[in-house]
């Protein structure tokens, strides 16, 4: 019985510990995280600078991270292996190309 409880706790801790949040606000910056998707190339583009494509830098072995100003709203997406990709973000908008963008708002 004890073993079962320990195993369950371990599983919860492991799953919870490994789950990377997709965004975290620290002070005036928001950190957007992207779990490793085995993509060969990963770029980030947002309305903050007219959708310039920025190569992502690795945060950990299994995730990418990018830091942006947290005081204003912006829309964004990733380009993984030349294909647009969005994580499971709360706020989304249609992109007029049959896909969606994520929307970051400071208050959400």
């Amino acid at each position, binding site marked *: 019985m004890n073993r079962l409880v320990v195993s369950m706790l371990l599983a919860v801790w492991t799953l919870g510990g490994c789950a990377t949040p997709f965004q975290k606000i620290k002070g005036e910056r928001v950190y957007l995280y992207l779990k490793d998707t085995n993509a060969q190339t990963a770029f980030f583009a947002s309305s903050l600078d007219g*959708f310039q494509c*920025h190569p992502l830098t690795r945060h950990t072995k299994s995730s990418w991270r990018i830091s*942006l100003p947290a005081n204003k709203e912006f829309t964004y997406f990733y380009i993984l292996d030349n294909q647009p990709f969005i994580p499971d973000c709360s706020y989304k*908008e249609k992109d007029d190309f049959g896909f969606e963008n994520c929307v970051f708002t400071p208050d959400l």
Partner: protein
Amino acid sequence: MKKTLLILMTLMLWVCPVWADEIDDALPEDTSLQIINNTRQMIQTGISQDDATQLTRTMLQNRFQARHILQAQNMLMETIQSNLPVEPVMNKAFEGMAKNKPDGLIVQAMKKTQSRYAYAYRKAQELTPDREMQNSLGLSIAQGMGAGLQEKDMEPVMTQLQTRIRQMSQNKVGELCLQTFLTARAMARLGVDPDNVSDVVCQALQNRFTAMEMQQLRSNFNSRSQQMSPNQLAKQFAQKLSQGEKPGESGSSNENNAGQSGSSQGRASESGNASENMGGSENGSDNAGSGGADGAGGSKGGGANGGAGGSGKK
């Protein structure tokens, strides 16, 4: 008179080649005369030289057909002449190029964006004579539509608002309209079906919600949407509102009730700013934002093809 004319002509002859050089230098050598002239016209209509040349150059780099470049340029000129914001339409072009979409599709998407803003600003003008408020309303309506709301979903909200504002003092009208459209926008962005968005917002207006109550409704909806399906939540809100309940009313502490007080703390100000704003950012190894993005891959609208080392801004 003759002297003045002579001076004017000399000035024009002196200025034109300098101007021509700047535009010519900013565009690739083999750019057609028609496109160069159209770029000049864009600048004359009020689009900044940097924006006009950068967009044109990027479209050329992305191998746009000449007719699509001209269409895109003309659309931007039309937009500025209609007193509509140019950035969202221009950003749509850069977004499409970043996503490697075909040029014809990008021009269509620009047109959709322009139409959305035209509709939104027209509606904003119907609600208030205040130019600044018209801008805020126009942006929130257009962004709500960008999140999936359509004209048919906006019309009932407009009707309700027009009924309400007839009974209100002018200084309170703008704020109620703004909070209403921000609420509709937030719900649409959370993925609520347009019909349900319209239903909730209209019910709240029928219940004579104030701007602050509307803001509180949005806050409550935002926080509760983390715990349950936004569509289900919207239906619950609509049901509660139809029973005359308001946010913050005592006795509405049930988890499933719409509009509780207490959960809106720290969420007071949802900005009506356009998400299309360009923003600055600090330098840093993982930063991105205008001016502050480091790394070799910055290529505005240049797409991610070919990996890092895109064309860059200049």
